[in-house]
C-alpha cells in the first residue's frame, strides 16, 4: 500500500516517475513540432502548385481534361435521359 508518511525514498520514487512522464511529454511535444513542420512544408508546396497553376491556366486545364478522360467511367457515353411523359 501507499506509504502515508513521506520519507526520503518517497521523493526519489516520485522523481523517477515524474522524470519518465516529463520525458514522454517532451518527446510527444518534439513529435508534434515535427508534424507541424511537415504540415507547413506541405502547405507551402500546395501554395507553390497553385501559383504555378495560376501562371499557366491553359496548360493546367488541358492536363486536367486529359486526366479526366483517362478515367473510363468519364469517357463512357452518358445514358440517354428518359423523357418525361408529363
Amino acid at each position, binding site marked *: 500500500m501507499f506509504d502515508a508518511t513521506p520519507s526520503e525514498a518517497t521523493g526519489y*520514487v516520485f522523481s*523517477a516517475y515524474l522524470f519518465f512522464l516529463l*520525458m514522454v511529454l517532451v518527446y510527444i511535444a518534439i513529435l508534434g513540432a515535427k508534424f507541424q513542420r511537415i504540415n507547413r512544408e506541405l502547405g507551402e508546396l500546395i501554395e507553390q502548385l497553385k501559383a504555378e497553376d495560376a501562371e499557366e491556366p491553359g496548360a493546367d486545364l488541358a492536363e486536367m481534361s486529359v486526366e479526366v478522360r483517362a478515367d473510363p467511367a468519364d469517357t463512357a457515353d452518358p445514358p440517354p435521359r428518359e423523357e418525361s411523359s408529363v
Partner: protein
Amino acid sequence: MTGRGLKTLSIATVLFLMAGFALVFLWVPMDADQGFKQKIFYLHVPLAIVALMGFVAGGIEGYRHLKSGDSRHDANSYVFIHISVTFGVAVLVTGAIWAKASWGYWWVWDEPTLVSFLIVFLLYCTYYPFRYAIEDRDRQARYASVFAITAGAFVPLNFLAVRMAESVIHPRVFATSEGGLPDSMLLTFLVCFVGIGLLWITLVKTEMVGKKVSGQVSYLRRRLHEDGAGGSVGGRIAPTVEAK
C-alpha cells in the same frame, strides 16, 4: 509499418500505463527488504527490457535490409534504435535515482549490470555520428545495418555475461532461486511491462508515420522542382520512407 490503428494503440498505451502506475502506488504490497523505493523497479526494469529488445529488433531489421535492400527496413532499424536509445536515457536516470535512494550513490563503477548497460547505451549513441558521417545514402543505410546487426548481437551476449557474473549489489528481479516475485508484484510488473512495451510501439509507429509523410513531401518537392532547384535530397540525414 504504418499509422493504421495508431489511435487504438495510443489509448491502450495510456490505459495500461495508468493501470500499471495505479497498481504500483495503490495496490501492490511494500517490499519487505527495500520498502517504498522498490517501486522504481516497476518502471526501471520494463524500460530496460524494452530498450534492449528494441536494440535487438533494430539488428533484425538491419539484417532484413541487407537481405532485401528495401529501405523501409533501414528506416525501421533506425527508428527502433532511436526510440530504444531514448528509453535507455530513462533507464539510466531511473536506475541512478534508485541507486542513490538505496546505496547512497548515483553510480557505482564496479557493478557489472550498470556498467554493461552504460556500454550498450554508449555503443548505440555512436550509431548517430557513424550514420551521419556517411553522405551517400545507400552506403549509409548498408553500414548502419551492419552496425545494427553487430550491436544487436552484442546485446543478448552482454546480458548473459552479466547474468552469469557474480554480482552482489544489483538485485535480480526475476531470481531463479530464493522465491522470485510474489503473484501481486508479478502481475503489477507485467501490466507495467505491457504498458511500456505499448508505449515503445506507439512511438515507433508515430515516428514511422512522420518518416513516411516526410518522404512523400520530399518526393512532391522533387517532382515540383525537377530541374533540381529546390530539392532536399542531399540535405536529409535521417532515413525517410520513400514515396513510390
